[in-house]
């Protein structure tokens, strides 16, 4: 059997927006991103992955990668899979991510590892179809991708796509929010916020006085970003069979307000007018009549009274690789154990 190919989408322009100025959001140097990719590659190599493809970009990531791979090869150490850059034009914005995800879907890669925050993941999911993704948190707001050492993500992805971990354990189905605007589809992985500002501007949303309405797929009290509001008011897990809708009003007039971490470094009171449960596949017309729609924390679309907007919660909309489950399975089955007698010993220990 031919070796599975894994795609890598490392977005060099994530973690660059206005939130660095308004609330000390983190940055991630290009060199660090490149090193994260290398660690992912190292993890995948250890599980037998031989081929990878990566999204091209013009922000210096590729240069770092190639230099590191050449040096490693010259030095005779490091065993990295082959890394091929997709042949596609580079615009330097999110359309690169979308195009790369589409190409990877077309070439039927076994999985896509995504380096970015919620925004990058959203774009990949919107374009990758049924290809499973594994997220590496490297964006501004990272509610969707978990914090994990990329080496381990690489290992987990490798174990999953090489079949060492059964698909039933390795892959998880996820909820999604679909937003139809005059028949045109946009998606969100975590939250859709309706705000009164009717311009996209610098995309991030942080002016609570403009918040109007929020839909979430999940919201954890320990989360960050808009979904944390739901997390603090009425938590929903990634696996719960429903979502939430929250309608805001001014903290002065609302029956109660909650101090939520609406962005990294930004905690503000948000007045709550109403909380509802969202069921799957039931289109809902938002109360908001005009403004803009933020998907996973970033304004993307503006709309007015004449525009038709519908929000629907979807089940099983895309697949992710459950790294924790993969690693647990690997430990249980000794996937990463090299000598048989040791395996026996380990079983004895486990047996207690």
């Amino acid at each position, binding site marked *: 059997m031919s070796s599975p190919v894994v795609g890598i989408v490392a977005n060099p322009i994530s973690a660059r927006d*206005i939130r660095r100025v308004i609330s000390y959001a983190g940055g991630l140097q290009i060199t660090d991103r490149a090193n994260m990719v290398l660690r992912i590659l190292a993890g995948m190599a250890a599980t037998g992955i031989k081929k990878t493809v990566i999204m091209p970009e013009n922000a210096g990531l590729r240069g770092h990668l190639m230099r590191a791979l050449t040096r490693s090869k010259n030095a005779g150490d490091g065993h990295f899979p082959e890394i091929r850059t997709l042949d596609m034009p580079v615009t330097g914005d999110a359309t690169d991510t979308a195009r790369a995800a589409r190409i990877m879907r077309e070439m039927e890669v076994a999985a896509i590892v995504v380096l970015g925050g919620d925004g990058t993941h959203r774009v990949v999911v919107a374009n990758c179809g049924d290809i499973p993704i594994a997220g590496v948190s490297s964006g501004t707001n990272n509610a969707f991708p978990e914090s994990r050492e990329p080496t381990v993500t690489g290992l987990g992805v490798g174990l999953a796509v090489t079949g060492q971990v059964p698909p039933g354990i390795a892959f998880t189905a996820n909820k999604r929010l679909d937003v139809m605007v005059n028949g045109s589809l946009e998606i969100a992985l975590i939250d859709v916020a309706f705000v009164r*500002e009717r311009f996209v501007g610098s995309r991030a949303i942080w002016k609570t006085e403009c918040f109007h309405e929020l839909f979430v797929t999940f919201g954890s009290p320990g989360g960050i970003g808009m979904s944390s509001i739901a997390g603090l008011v009425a938590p929903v897990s990634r696996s719960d069979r429903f979502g939430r809708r929250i309608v805001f009003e001014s903290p002065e007039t609302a029956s109660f307000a909650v101090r939520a971490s609406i962005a990294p470094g930004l905690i503000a009171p948000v007045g709550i007018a109403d909380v509802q449960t969202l069921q799957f596949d039931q289109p809902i017309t938002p109360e908001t009549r005009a403004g803009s729609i933020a998907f996973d924390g970033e304004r993307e679309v503006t709309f007015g009274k004449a525009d038709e907007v519908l929000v629907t919660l979807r089940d099983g909309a895309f697949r992710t690789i459950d790294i924790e489950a993969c690693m647990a399975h690997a430990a249980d089955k000794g996937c990463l154990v090299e000598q048989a007698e040791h395996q026996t010993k380990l079983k004895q220990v486990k047996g207690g």
Partner: protein
Amino acid sequence: MSATATAVSAQGSDSPFPLEKDDLLSAYRTMKTIREFEDRLHVDFARGDIPGFVHLYAGEEAAATGIMMHLTDEDRIASTHRGHGHCIAKGVSVHEMMGEIYGKVSGACRGKGGSMHIADLSKGMMGANGILGAGAPLACGAALAAKKLGHKGVGISFVGDGASNQGMFLESLNLAGVWELPVIFVVENNGYAESTSVDWAVASDSYVDRANGFGLPGVTVDGTDFFAVHEAAGEMIRRARDGGGPSLLECKMIRFHGHFEGDAQTYRAEGEVEDIRNNRDCIKMFADRVSEAGVISRVETDAVDAEVATLIDSAVEQAKAAPLPDTADLLTDVYVKY
């Protein structure tokens, strides 16, 4: 992307934009003035009317305009060799600029500076600059003066993607951080340092990374999106005025013309210029958005277009008619007193 929509009132807080209609019109007028100014120079230069060489800002208007709308005359900007757009957006007289470019006494610098050295301190324009990267320390100085004199002025340093490699620029990031200066470094990344690609010439070409390296927050925005620039710059400028210190804004943008006029642009990809002109024209995108939102009608933008064309016509006419500097002018203005 914007949903198509019919008329929406732009009154009061219902405005779909962060600016009132008058300000939107003014932004449009500024951008259009820059475009018309530059396009006219492009033509007149090719005809041989203009001495020396000029570097045109066409295609980059949203950046200068989005930033400068937050500034007053007390705020100072240090510009680049590609400075016409900055000058116009900062309020320098178009007539004086044109006079300068034609080398006439009517010029902003009485014909002694030329395109690359247009300045008007009364408008807070510290000068275009023929030395790439040299403006950054100057903007730090303006910010230092604002801080020491106790007014709320800020300094803005414009630099291209190429000149951001200059020591002067990088040293300025550090100095601004150490002295907590109210200065904003704007990297106008149009992808080309003269003919050299940013991909090649900048080892780690995230300017945000560079800012981070000096302890400054950095932000990247789509420099062709007026609203993105305007909002990000607004936050950074407000922060600097309030004592929040320096920051860096990278505007990713595009250059319609060559590095200088007469540049055959053989380093560009085939069809690149046509593509950006058709699909990434910041003025067109702005006009589409405000008209789709029903805030400013095509009739209104057309009227501005006509007004701007007349303005540039008259600037060119006046510049051509203006007298050349006198022989005696060669020796004056070297010193205040000598």
